[in-house]
């Protein structure tokens, strides 16, 4: 791939393929290098997963590689006082000294309690190594922190529920009407950001209708057929009213899907639990024609009843769907209108349009099989997840898709990590699917049912039996772990490429939590806010300097190839010379493991975490170079002919086109998905029993088999003068805090006042005497106060103001990103209240409903 094109006076002129690192989608890119200097980045025409396209972030990656503000050498703290803005008194030391110190702290912590070691990163590409390190030390504490605080809590558990995969994506090949709640997928946001944006563009040109429900006219809404402004945190009421419209008013939903592929027909008793067969313990279904009750797997699904009453051994029972339908009754469009501020006629109209577009009952022939064709789907993400009742809202989004029958079929929402010939879901004893992919065999879905136990993890995951993670609870585990029965304190934090001080809620609370940690090692290219708490700061390589195997993987959720499209394998290779003392942080972890005396376990853990097989497995007693490890992992995963040499030469490898049977597995796997969340009931009882036993107030109201709307606490508690919400708005050229470390992207933001300033509805601003460009104060009920510049717009709900992106960096790592004018933007998370009562105790989401008052500065 590297082609020499010498020009006059130029001794080298090459394009080098690699993978982008400016968000975690791993687009395949090529870097133009002239005389050893990287001068341009662009896509490779047609190559996935990004179809040759590159976003503004990817194009800007050059900016930081040559920055003089990078961490230049290993440094140790001399000032014991820690905090953002406090000089750590860094003293330069050698790598040898640094690694010995690092290893000695790991050894000491292991001697005390290995669980006291916490590894944190948002580096998807090296996560397996971080996980292996954590495994080798014997700790369950490895986390991605960051987005798990606001983002995926109402998405991943639902994705598992619907598709036995951790992520879902909409089938833009066949969808004719996409209804999107609080999301940016298809608009340079979400997973496979660029690839999906290309597919979105194709779908829109084909005529797919797009309706966006969001408080802000975001990038998705600005390209949609219709934008429906909604009050923050009320999407659940909208969804419930739509379902009521379909089920109770119109009697228009996919009954066949419910009977064949869900538990809607499973009989439940007065306590909401399944009625089970005495002999087999299988849930029973009622047969409408005979009145008999049979184990679900012995009854013809289409003959099982969705409605009616049955008597089993003298006990009255109804199909679960009866309970589901009854709970929809209060959710009229008029009720939802009061809650959401969306006119009732709009809710009803959208409900009609979507269900009509779904073509319920239609089928399509693909590769010799007959598939249900459901040409409408519901998509959602952070807007749903960043609330006190994230799990409930997310499950309701999933249930909308179930009622349409739009799950893992052409046109619906599809699993996005379980594709490929190795995938098969397993079935639990009640017939429900759960991940069976050997590459994802360690995931934690809600089914099969998990036990609640005394917390062993700093994130208190054991108290979240139906969630996939509990990342937002880290501060609570650090500060109050003993109250929850956690038997140790955090002794060592290893953190790299993730900035928990900036991406958690209120930084003051997070700072207190950070100060409880005995020793912190930060491996970073820049000294960020989290590094302000580090005891040891180690220079990490820039993405254009590092070797990282298997960044792009067709089996990964960031690839998510649609039917007939190919997934892509790619990797990162050094494109420019590494600045003198920077090292690849994955390699550093392996080195430290050997120095700490746990090298053999590190190798075993690397084999397990990376699924390295056969002759490529690392032997326990041998130390491998990063190159050798990378080559083994790559060959084991992609094949003997496709090791590092292949990728160095070719940059990427296109996988085979995805077959319909993998893209649309519903009719092939024979399993079910739970519309009725019976497994939540016992989970809630167990959580309550544990928290009661320790006198902890813990809300279990969302552990319900049917989900209801509940308002966020802010709505109930804020005094009347706090009459607006501040909402956070995603920008396509900002992802993670490191975007705000990039001078080019910050410059782009600042030059565009439409995205840098605080959006306020024009009519609202007029009432408050605020004009475009005014300096304003934003105040919260807990006394947080920040200054911003007003930007007046019709593109925001009248009761809201919007703070875009991930701005307001305090130290910013790269001070050139802040620039000479000193403007940094508003740090939204700084205003978010970080207390237990603001958290979803089912999904561990942190409520980002922030009530504010605004005034002229």
């Amino acid at each position, binding site marked *: 791939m590297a082609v020499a094109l010498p020009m006059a006076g130029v001794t080298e002129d090459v394009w080098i393929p690699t993978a982008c690192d400016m968000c975690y989608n791993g687009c395949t890119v090529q870097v133009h290098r002239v005389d050893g200097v990287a001068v341009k980045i662009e896509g490779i025409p047609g190559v996935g997963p990004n179809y040759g396209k590159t976003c503004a972030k990817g194009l800007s990656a050059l900016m930081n590689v040559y920055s003089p503000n990078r961490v230049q050498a290993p440094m140790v703290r001399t000032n014991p006082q820690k905090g953002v803005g406090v000089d750590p008194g860094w003293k330069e030391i050698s790598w040898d000294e640094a690694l010995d110190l690092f290893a000695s702290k790991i050894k000491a912590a292991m001697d005390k309690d290995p669980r006291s070691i916490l590894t944190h990163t948002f580096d998807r590409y090296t996560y397996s190594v971080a996980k292996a390190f954590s495994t080798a030390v014997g700790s369950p504490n490895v986390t991605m922190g960051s987005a798990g605080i606001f983002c995926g809590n109402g998405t991943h558990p639902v994705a598992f529920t619907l598709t036995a995969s951790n*992520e879902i994506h909409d089938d833009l090949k066949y969808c004719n009407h996409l209804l999107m709640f609080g999301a940016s997928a298809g608009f340079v946001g979400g997973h496979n950001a660029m690839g999906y944006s290309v597919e979105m563009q194709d779908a829109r040109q084909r005529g797919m209708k797009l309706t966006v429900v969001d408080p802000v006219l975001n990038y998705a809404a600005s390209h949609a057929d219709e934008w429906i402004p909604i009050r923050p945190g009320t999407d659940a009421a909208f969804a419930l009213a739509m379902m009521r419209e379909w089920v109770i008013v119109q009697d228009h939903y996919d009954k066949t899907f419910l009977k064949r592929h869900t538990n809607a027909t499973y009989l439940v008793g007065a306590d909401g639990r399944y009625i089970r067969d005495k002999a087999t313990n299988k849930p029973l279904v009622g047969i409408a024609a005979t009145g008999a009750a049979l184990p679900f797997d012995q009854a013809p699904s289409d003959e099982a009843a969705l409605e009616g009453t049955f008597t089993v051994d003298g006990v009255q029972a109804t199909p679960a769907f009866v309970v589901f339908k009854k709970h929809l009754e209060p959710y009229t469009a008029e009720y939802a209108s009061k809650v959401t501020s969306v006119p009732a006629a709009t809710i009803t109209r959208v409900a009609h349009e979507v269900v009509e577009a779904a073509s319920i009952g239609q089928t399509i022939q693909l590769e010799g099989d007959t598939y249900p064709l459901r040409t409408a789907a519901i998509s959602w993400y952070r807007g749903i997840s960043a609330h006190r009742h994230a799990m409930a809202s997310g499950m309701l989004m999933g249930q909308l898709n179930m009622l349409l029958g739009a799950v893992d079929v052409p046109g619906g929402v599809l699993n996005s990590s379980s594709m490929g010939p190795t995938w098969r879901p397993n079935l639990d004893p009640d017939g429900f699917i759960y991940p069976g992919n050997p590459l994802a065999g*360690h995931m*934690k879905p809600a089914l099969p049912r998990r036990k609640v136990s005394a917390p062993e993890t700093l994130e208190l995951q054991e108290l979240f039996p139906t969630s996939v993670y509990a990342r937002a609870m880290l501060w609570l585990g650090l500060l109050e772990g003993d109250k929850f029965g956690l038997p140790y304190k955090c002794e060592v934090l290893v953190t790299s490429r993730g900035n928990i001080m900036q991406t958690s809620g209120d930084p003051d609370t997070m700072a207190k939590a950070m100060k409880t940690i005995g020793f912190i090692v930060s491996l970073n290219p820049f000294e960020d806010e989290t590094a302000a708490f580090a005891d040891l700061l180690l220079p990490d390589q820039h993405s254009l300097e590092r070797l990282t195997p298997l960044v792009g993987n067709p089996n990964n959720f960031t690839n998510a190839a649609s039917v007939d499209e190919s997934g892509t394998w790619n990797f990162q290779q050094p494109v420019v010379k590494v600045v003198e003392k920077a090292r690849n942080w994955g390699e550093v972890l392996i080195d430290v493991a050997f120095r700490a005396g746990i090298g053999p376990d590190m190798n*075993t*853990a690397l084999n397990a975490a990376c699924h390295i*097989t056969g002759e490529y497995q690392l032997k326990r007693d041998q130390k491998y170079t990063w190159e050798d490890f990378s080559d083994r992992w790559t060959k084991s995963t992609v094949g003997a002919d496709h090791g590092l040499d292949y990728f160095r030469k070719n940059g990427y490898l296109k996988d085979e086109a995805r077959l319909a049977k993998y893209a649309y597995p519903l009719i092939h796997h024979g399993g079910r998905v739970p519309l009725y969340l019976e497994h939540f009931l016992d989970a809630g009882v167990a959580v309550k029993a544990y928290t009661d036993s320790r006198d902890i107030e813990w809300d279990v109201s969302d552990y319900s088999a049917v989900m209801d709307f509940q308002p966020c606490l802010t709505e109930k508690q804020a005094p009347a003068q706090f009459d607006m919400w501040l909402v956070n708005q995603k920008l396509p050229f900002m992802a993670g805090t490191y975007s705000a470390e990039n001078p080019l992207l910050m410059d782009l933001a600042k030059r565009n006042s439409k995205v840098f300033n605080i959006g306020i509805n024009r009519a609202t601003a007029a009432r408050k005497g605020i004009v475009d460009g005014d300096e304003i104060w934003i105040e919260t009920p807990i006394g947080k106060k920040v200054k911003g510049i007003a930007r007046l717009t019709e593109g925001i709900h009248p009761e809201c103001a919007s703070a875009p992106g991930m701005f307001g960096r305090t130290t910013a790592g790269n001070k050139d990103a802040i620039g000479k004018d000193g403007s940094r933007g508003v740090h939204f998370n700084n205003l978010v209240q970080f207390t237990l009562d603001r958290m979803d105790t089912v999904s561990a989401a942190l409520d980002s409903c922030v009530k504010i008052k605004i005034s002229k500065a």
Partner: protein
Amino acid sequence: MIQCKVIFAGLIKRVVGTSEMTVTLPAGSTLGDLLADLTARFGQEFEDKILLNGDLANHAVVMIDGDYAREVGGMQARLDRQTPAQVEIVLLGPPLLGG
């Protein structure tokens, strides 16, 4: 009889209190038999960490002579393919999940 060298890595090491041991099992024994034997030695906490509903828990990776147990028969995988058998039991931390 089958001689089985068992290596423990990750969180499970704390539960069993050792990093490796040798177990002797009757001829024809399977992974299920080995795990039952280890449960008898190390108690309910061992089983709770490794098994879910009688099968390998999602986060438990077991390698038998370098092969992933899930791919060679799971709980029914035989242990007499090599003498002595080498079984590595690893408890992994949580998976990477998007966002």
